[in-house]
């Protein structure tokens, strides 16, 4: 037999349980629950409702008198005329029209502005960017060649930094060489081709190279001659005359 818990007994006391009859039967049949319920009733019956101090017949009047001055009078609701009914609708229509006109004007303005933006593109800007990139590339290539020419093989030869630098330069060199081919600058193209072959060799150089290997690479690739070519190219790029020439002919993208 399942006993009633305190919550169920309280519910029963306040006659709020859904199955009052069943609980009544259980309380008659179960002495433990009957005892608990008797104790609950004793406790709750002992708590008598507080009797409020008496208030006379005129209490309502007293309350009213003390309140009246602080109560604002409600405004009489005004009847809506036909014009008042249409007023919100007119406002809504006006707002919608305003939004539509603003949208249309915005579209027209944008359409007029678009060609102007296209015309405003500076044709020399792209050229200047190419020159800067090319100058940076040649500068880095020159430093790499200087490092390679002065590297000693007796354990001072650290292939890793040169190898990673060569890998980075390789991608740029291909683009620059392609640009030189397109502009018909065959001298530059030849130098950049030689540089590319050296960069490929360096990028794939295994660890543990001897001094003989290093010398062989220098000789085969003629790194001294290549360094000279790169310096010549760099001087051409930095020359203001060349830059002007490049600016005057937009097809000479690399201006080499």
């Amino acid at each position, binding site marked *: 037999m399942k006993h009633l818990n305190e919550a169920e007994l309280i519910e029963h006391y306040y006659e709020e349980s859904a199955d009052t009859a069943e609980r009544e039967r259980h309380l008659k049949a179960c002495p433990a629950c009957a005892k608990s319920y008797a104790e609950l009733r004793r406790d709750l019956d002992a*708590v008598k409702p507080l009797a409020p101090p008496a208030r006379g017949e005129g209490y*309502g009047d007293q309350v*009213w008198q003390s*309140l009246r001055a602080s*109560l604002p009078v409600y405004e009489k609701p005004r009847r809506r005329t036909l014009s008042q009914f249409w007023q919100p609708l007119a406002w809504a229509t006006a707002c919608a029209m305003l939004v539509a006109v603003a949208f249309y004007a915005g579209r027209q303005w944008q359409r007029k502005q678009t060609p102007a933006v296209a015309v405003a593109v500076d044709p020399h800007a792209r050229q200047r960017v190419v020159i800067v990139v090319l100058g940076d590339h040649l500068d880095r290539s020159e430093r790499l060649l200087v490092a390679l020419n002065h590297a000693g093989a007796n354990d001072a030869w650290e292939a890793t930094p040169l190898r990673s630098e060569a890998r980075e330069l390789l991608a740029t060199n291909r683009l620059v060489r392609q640009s030189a081919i397109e502009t018909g600058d065959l001298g530059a193209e030849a130098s950049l081709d030689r540089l590319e072959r050296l960069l490929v060799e360096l990028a794939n150089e295994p660890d543990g190279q001897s001094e003989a290997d290093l010398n062989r690479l220098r000789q085969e690739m003629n790194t001294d001659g290549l360094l000279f070519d790169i310096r010549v190219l760099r001087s051409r790029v930095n020359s203001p005359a060349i830059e002007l020439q490049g600016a005057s002919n937009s097809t000479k993208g690399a201006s080499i």
Partner: protein
Amino acid sequence: MRCMEESDDSIRRAVVSGDRDAYKVLVARYSQVVFRVAYRITGNESDAEEAVQETFLRSYQKLANFEGRSTMATWIYRIAANCALDIVSRRRPETRIGEENDPEQREVQLADNQAGPDRLLLSREIEARRQAAMSDLTPTEQTAFVLRHMEDRSTEEIAAALNIAPNAAKQAVFRAVQKLRRQLAPLWVNS
């Protein structure tokens, strides 16, 4: 001059239409009930008076929004319970400092009362214990218990008055009864 038999709804319409004095009938009609419930919740006369004023002020301000889902009597009753609860919540920190809440003091009172076996003294002791138990309740538990035990309101009515879920109202009554019984328990052991 309005008569007392006029319906609550027609009075409400009159007030909302600008007849402020029509509200006097509602005040007269419900002030006693409002005072009673406020007194039982707050436990003292001056707080109950304050709750009465606040109740009729709030009712007047919200009269235009009264939708008639319940009777006007129930609506005002809920506002009254809420106002009284607010007052109890505001007052509670002060009363907690009072000596009635000091456990040692309670023991002293119990020791004195145990000496007298007479019924009157037992009633006084029960009342003292009830007051002590009530001060241990949260304002919501206290209000829920008063509405349930003294005002004989259903769980749904209590929930509506306190703006809580019916289950929360039931739990509040349950916790209040438990605390009250714990407070009264020593009396039965000693008697």
